[in-house]
Each structure stands twice: as C-alpha cells, then as structure tokens.
C-alpha cells in the first residue's frame, strides 16, 4: 500500500496538534508578540512531505512436506533472526493439564539430538547467541538470532531442537520443578495475580483463554513426561509449523536452508482450531485477590472482545487508542495527569485467533481504589456521552499508521511478525490491510465499536490489593458483591463446564 494519507486527514491531524500549542491562547497582544524575537516559536513547524510508508514485507512458499516458510529481507546489517513457529499454544492445554504447552516447549531446550541441555546452550553460546522460546495462547516460536555467517550452524541446532528433542524424564522433572517454583514466586507478583484472575473472570476457568499458560500448582503437579510427548507429537510437524526468517538472507537462500534442514521433517500434527467465542455475561461481582499491606491496588477490567480479522478490529483498536491506548488518552490523562492516582493507566486490544479480550488496567494508590474505579467507569460511559471526536480519531489513526516503520526496526520484531501471520492465518499484506482499515474508519464506525465493546456493565473487574482497604473502598459502590479469589487457585475440575474448544 503505497498511497499517502488523504490530505484532509493530515490537515485535521495538524490542526489537532496545533491545538496542543499553548501560545495561541496565552500571547496577550500582537504588538508584544512581534517585539519578541522568539515569538515565531508559537507556531509549530509544518511537517514536510510525508515519506513513503514502509511496512513489513514478507515472502511465503511451502516445502513439499507442507512446511511453510516466511521470509522478510533486511540486508543492512549482517544479522538474521530465524525460528520455527508452531500453531499449538497454551490454549491447546488439555483441561486440567494447564501449563503443559509451556513446559513442553521449554523442554525442547533441555536436550536435542546428540546434545544435552548444557551442550546445546554451549553450542549456541559459541555462536554468540542463545535459543529462545516464547509461547502465546495461539502458538509458539522457537528461535535464535545470529550473524549471517553463523546461520548454517544455527539451522542445524534449530533442526535438532524442533525435530529431535530428547524429551527425557529427568529433564522433564527438572522443568516441572522449576515451573512449580515459578508459580510459587508469581504468587508474590501483583501483576501476575491480576492477569490470572482476569483471564478466569472474563472467559471462565475452563475456557482455553480462561487461564494463563503457567498452569496452577495442582495442574502442573499432575503433568507427566508422557503428557509432554503426546502434546509435542500433536503440535509439531510440517503441516502445523512455519519456518520464519528475517534479516540478511535472500528468499533463495532461505529455500535452500529450509529444504536442507527441514525438508525431511515428517509428522501428522495439524493446527488446532480457534477456541470458541465465550459468552459475554454481565458482571456478577468484583473479584478480589487479597494481598495484605500493599500500598497500591492493581485494577484490571475488561471483557472478551474480538478475534484477529474481525471486521471491527480496526475500529475497536482506534477506539481503544482514544480511550486508553496512548499517553494522551482519556484514561491516562484523567487518572495520572489530572487526578495523580497512578503512574499510568492504559488499555489495549488483545485480539487472538479466537475472540480475545480488551483490557484496561492501572496500579493506583490504595486509598483511592474506589475513586479510581469510578473514573474507569466514567470514562467508559463517556465514550457514549462524549463521542470520539474527528480530531481524536485522526490523531489515533495517524499515530497507528505512521508508527509502523519505526515499530519494525529489528529483525527479531520482523520474525515475530512473520510468526504472527502464521499463528493467526493472516495474509502477507496484513500490514497494508491494517493501514487501509484504519483509513476507512470514520467517527461513526469507531463510535459504534466503542458502543459495542465498552459497556461498563459487561466489564469484569479484578482487584489485587489489601482486602480490608478494598472492602472499605469498593464494597458500597454497587458494582456487585466482592468475591475473594484464593491465592493458590484451585485446579480446574475435570468434566465441569465444557472447554469451549
């Protein structure tokens, strides 16, 4: 997508920027302004001719065994990011075995081919790098980043990790212990506690998005090495994976390397289906995770909202930008800069393969917990009574579109974007479509999305903090009964509340 923004849009955006210039209101009289040799500064600079918008570019092809290969070329520095993206993420955890996907993917780095964990790490370190695993709800990425001249060796290690992981019992037990200890540590992390409780509140404990990928102490405790082997067999194979390259590599070279190292990969794994959309229910109560003596309360609010590719995705993203997606958003300006309740308040749209949530959150001073929640609710209601203005929309739109080139400076970011295209079944021109979607949005369509998704009565509320303070501050606000969530959440019970997969 090469065309520039409509001229009118740019003008409106500039007008909005100029409104941020104080001098137009404060310069007392023209004569004085002329006398001041610095008076010219009152007018913000006029931007130059916009440069061509550079969006990430991808090539895609498939090997005879079905493995997709995505390539994004960037040749200025001798560095390449390479990885294998897999379609099974934490949403593929069987009910009652939460934590299995993360544990299994971590296990890949505990030994593969002829190397044990230490030898594997040493081999990467010799290349000046290490292997990296990241797991999301809808997929995983196993990869590394190396200088171009080390790419062959890195490919050989990566091929071992993905195709010939050892998945040994002793390593499994080690990772399992570490994951359990990590859960014990996370109980001390207010942000983690909020995220865990929020997933359950918004999606229900048994929904694939209703839990974090870490699992619970009870669910992890019952995992066996056979579970990991079964999971990996179902997750890894050329028909459920993509090889992603970004950086100093040509598509031709990528084809050679892919065929050489992954051409013989076999496996019957198929990509899991998207989780079913959860029912969106009115808020029944406020979830409280008690953590005594905290000087702040973590507030997290939200609801299931939208899947990647939903026609309303662009509208909702822009609405959320205005609501809480930038520093100058309504929510942050209110809670941080006007009220001084917090270091920051923000919202984001987490669209996923299935319907993902919108989330608004902040850590606020404990003694203004109630007042802060009231402001959250008021800002949501205000989206109705104080509709998103054309100027707000233009600013959000311009910000989203024009930040694209700067958001993809690194090859790591590009390979992650390539993996996302694969996880979410997106077309190669995803970023061009994003730009078109943002450009097509109008105040009416964005307002409609805000109305559709920001109804305060459908917002689940999770609070982490001192239970006495919360009870005193929030108990009488009429938001529903306070429901305490135990720190060591009970494991999901089998057979109850069908998993919506």
């Amino acid at each position, binding site marked *: 997508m090469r065309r520039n923004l409509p001229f009118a849009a740019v003008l409106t955006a500039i007008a*909005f920027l100029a409104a*941020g210039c*104080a*001098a137009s209101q404060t310069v007392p009289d023209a004569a004085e302004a002329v006398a001041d040799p610095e008076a010219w*500064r*009152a007018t*913000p*600079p006029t931007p*130059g001719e*916009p*440069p*061509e918008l550079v969006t990430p570019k991808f090539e895609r092809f498939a090997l005879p065994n079905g493995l997709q290969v995505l390539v994004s070329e960037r040749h*200025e520095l001798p*560095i390449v*990011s390479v*990885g294998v993206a897999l379609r099974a993420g*934490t949403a593929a955890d069987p009910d009652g075995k939460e934590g299995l996907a993360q544990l299994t993917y971590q296990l890949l*780095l505990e030994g593969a081919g002829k190397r044990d964990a230490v030898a594997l790490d*040493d081999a*990467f*370190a*010799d*290349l*000046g*790098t*290490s292997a*990296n695993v*990241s797991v*999301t*709800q809808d997929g995983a990425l196993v*990869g*590394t980043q*190396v*200088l171009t001249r080390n790419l062959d060796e890195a490919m050989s290690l990566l091929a071992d990790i993905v195709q010939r992981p050892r998945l040994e019992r002793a390593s499994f037990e080690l990772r399992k212990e*570490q994951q359990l200890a990590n859960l014990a*540590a996370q109980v*001390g992390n*207010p942000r983690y506690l909020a995220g865990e409780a929020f997933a359950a509140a918004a999606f229900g404990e048994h929904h694939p998005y209703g839990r974090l990928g870490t699992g619970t102490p009870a669910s992890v405790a019952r995992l066996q090495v056979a579970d990991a082997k079964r999971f990996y067999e179902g997750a890894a194979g050329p028909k459920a994976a993509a090889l992603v390259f970004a950086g100093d590599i040509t598509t031709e070279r990528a084809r050679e390397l892919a065929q050489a190292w992954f051409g013989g990969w076999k496996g019957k794994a198929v990509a899991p289906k998207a989780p079913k959309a959860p029912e969106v229910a009115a808020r029944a109560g406020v979830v409280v995770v008690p953590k005594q003596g905290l*000087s702040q309360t973590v507030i997290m609010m939200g609801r299931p909202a939208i899947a990647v590719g939903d026609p309303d995705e662009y509208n909702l993203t822009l609405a*959320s930008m205005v609501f809480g997606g*930038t*520093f*100058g958003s309504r929510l942050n300006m209110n809670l*941080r800069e006007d009220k001084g309740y917090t*270091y920051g308040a*923000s919202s984001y749209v987490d669209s996923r393969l299935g319907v993902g949530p919108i989330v608004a959150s902040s*850590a606020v*001073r404990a003694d203004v917990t109630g007042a802060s929640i009231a402001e959250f609710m008021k800002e949501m209601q205000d989206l109705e009574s104080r509709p998103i203005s054309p100027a707000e929309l233009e*600013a*959000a739109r*311009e*910000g989203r579109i*024009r*930040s694209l*080139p*700067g*958001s993809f*400076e690194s090859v*790591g970011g590009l390979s*992650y974007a390539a993996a996302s295209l694969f996880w979410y079944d997106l077309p190669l021109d995803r970023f061009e479509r994003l730009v078109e979607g943002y450009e097509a949005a109008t105040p009416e369509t964005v307002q409609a999305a805000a109305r559709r998704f920001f109804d305060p009565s459908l917002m689940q509320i999770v609070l982490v903090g001192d239970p006495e303070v919360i009870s005193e501050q929030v108990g009488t606000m009429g938001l529903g009964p306070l429901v305490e969530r135990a720190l060591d959440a009970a494991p999901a019970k089998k057979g109850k509340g069908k998993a919506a997969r």
Partner: protein
Amino acid sequence: MRSLVFAALLAATPSLALADLAPAPAPAPAAVPAAAALPAPAEADDHLSIPFTKYRLDNGLEVILSEDHRLPIVSVNIWYHVGAFNEQQGRTGFAHLFEHMMFQGSRNVEDDAHISMLQYLGATGLNGTTNFDRTNYFQTVPSHHLETALWLESDRMGFLLDTLTPEKLAKQQEVVKNERRERTDSAPYGLANEKSWQTLFPAPHPYYGSVIGSMEDLDAATLDDVRSFFETWYAPSNATLAVVGDFDPETIRGTIEKYFGTLPSRPKPEARSVAPMELASTVELRVDEKVATLPKLRISWLTPSVYQPGDAEADVLAIALSGGKSSRLYKRLVREKKLAQSVSAWQQSLGAQSVFVVDAVARPGVSTDRLLAEVDVVLDEVRARGISAREVRQARNKLETGTVAGLQSVGGFGGKADQLQSYNHFLGEPGKIEWDLDRYEAVTSADVQEFARSVLDPSRRVILHATPATAAGPKAAPPPAGKKPAAGPTTAPAPAGKGGR
C-alpha cells in the same frame, strides 16, 4: 551498561522512565523477542563503526549527527549531563522528578501535550529516563516530522520555566510517588533491594537515593528547587543533542541552529566529584520481605566505574556466571543442586562507581544462607582457577553481537543515538564503539580471575537476605556455623564505608 541490549541481557535496571510507553500495545504474556534481543557474534575482522559528526553551537550545546537512511524515521535524542548524582541532600529523587516536569509544557507547548503530539504523529521509541549519571529524552519520528521533535525539545530547553506552576509540581510529585509505590514499595524485593543499595552508598553519597528517592524528599521539593535545577543543570552547555537517522545532511545544521541557536547560553556547571566508597568489611542484611513469596539472596560489590579497567572483565564474568544453561551459577544452583529458581549476575556500570551483583532466588524451602554457601563455592572456583578460554570467547561473542543488534535501532532505549551519547558522555568522544569492543577482545581468563580475586572480595561485600515470613518453612536450614546473622530483621547495620563526602 553500554546499552539496554546488554542491560536486558544482564538483567540490570539502570534507569527510571517517564512512563510505560510500549511501542505498540502488546498482550502481556507474549514476549516479543525483539525486546529480549538475542546476541550473535560479530565478524572478528569486521570493524564496527557508527559514522557521525560532532560540533558545538555558540551557546555551548553539543550536537552529534549520524545519517542512517534504512527507514524513513529519525531519532532526536538529548542527554542532559545531570543525574541523581547531582542531587542535594534532602532532595533524593529530584533529578527524576524534574524529568517529569519536562513533559508538563513550556512557553509554546501546552501542558501534557508533548507525548500526545508525538504519539499522534507516529513517534516510536519515545520517553525520558533518569539514571544516576544523566537524564535523556528521546523520540523516533517519521522523518517529515523531524522539525516538530526539534521544536518540542528546544522549547523546553529554553522556556520550561515560563509555564511552571505549583499545581504542575504537586501533580508530578504524586505521579512520581505512585511510581515509587509501583516499582519499589509494591514490587517483589523492591524495598529489600533499596536497602542493599543504600548500604553500598550510605548518605550523603549522591547514589544513596537510588534515583527514585524517598517519599519525604519527593514531598519536600519546591518550585525554587525546580527553577534552580533548571538554571544550573539544563543549560545548553550541559546538554548534547543527537540526531540519528533519515535527515537531510544539507539542511540539518541550519534547522538545528534555528531551534537551538538562540537559546541563551549559561555556564557549564562544574562536574561534581565524590571520593570512592569502600567497604571495610562485609555487611550482612536480613530483611523481612513483604511482597515476594520466595527468599532471595543478593550479593553486591563496589567495582570500577564504566569503561574503566575492570569493567569489561566484570561483564565477561557476569556472562560466564549466569549467561545461560551452561553458565556456572545456573549449572550448579539451578540444574545440579536444584536450590535456586533463578540466578543472575551483572555489572551495573556507572559513572562514579559501579556495582557487581549476584542475585539468586531460592526454591521453596531453601534458605538464602544455603544459596550463599553455594554461590561462594562457584566464586571460589573462579578465584582459584579463572574461567576457560571458551567461556571468555563465548562472552565476548555475545557482547559483540549485542552491540550489532543494538545498531538496528536509530533511537529508543539503547539504540544508535544512546550508544553515541554514552561514549560521548563518559569518554568525551562518540566514536568509541570499536574501542569498546576491543576492550572485550583484550580480556583474558587471567584478567577475570584477578577481578574475581581482588574486586569480588568475599570480606568486602553487602549480602542481602530477603526472606518472606511465609517462606520460613520447616526445610529452611539454619545459617551455617561461623556465619553470624546480622542483628535483627530490617536493621541496616552501619556500613563500613568511607568517603562519599
């Protein structure tokens, strides 16, 4: 602390930012690998350099220009050569509080407009950060908005005080106190880490305040403090402007002259000098941890300052100790003995004096005293025999390629602009990247051994035991014989430092 690429690698937390401004709203659990930049080795014969020119305006402002036309974006990055190091007694946290005031508008820029304007024109890598030694402000903008960024920066450099009000100061005092609540008081190990730091640098050492400062001192700040801090430290002669990226080399000097050339000159403030701290003996702190749930051991030593002899050895040793699964501390404490949940070691490189830190978080039921004994076994081994040539080579490769990865960004945290600025600030010369990497080329196993022996002296260090009350389980072992625990919990014994006046 060459760049945040390393900082991330080494788990250091060197500075406080104005706000949590994510480049794009990213869902929490999906770590974008770009952030966890994986290092790769540089070609041994590949001479890295960042082309630049440096000059000075008549009013003393230093300018560094570096062209890079890979993407249509340009970074505007200003370092003011003032940090927490320059704070007065009773005003801990002031340099950082002042940084917040820099976003509150100036003569021609409305309150709070700065970040909003930039976000709405597509800026990325946008923030202000304060650390012990300097304060920086940066934004990467689409190249046609370069002048807007220069206009914004010049207005606050020249005319910040015009619109200063008591209300603005009061509001930012609240915001910063909230930041302290979020990042220190309510963060796992936040208060315990602060106590350990303050034992290394007891008052009145200017590092004592740990950048964020105390609630009392933040409350005590006055408008006069803001005015005199600005007059003294924010003089053009005490600042360096770097413009890195896609700018027009024909017009850039004229444009910079237009916005910054007429800002009144003020004398460059005298550099402060503080006698180095020394620990006469080991200080052991036992702190009752209120937020985290697992015990943590932290060992800290005073070490040579950034870029001084010993600094490179410290970086190499840190990687050998905790750089991956094959590293010494990880192998022994996490894999073999299963005593620690995580380990990390890093050199926090600072202008006046650096600190080398070893952190180990215990598995449930393991005491910090047990961890201490095990860390000492590993360190004694290094003191007795050094590290292997392979470990030196691996660390060197990782550090070199961390640098290559850092060159992918023109600005943001730790990109090219910060890299040039860092060399310029500490060494008086931006073009030191090759020299910097050569330092690591020169490090030998014997150097690392000597560093471990003479600098990481077991009898001159601060040992922090942060123990949650809930973690005192039956498996918690008593301290080994001969190690006398310090007085009581939360008691910071009088540190045996001298100097710091």
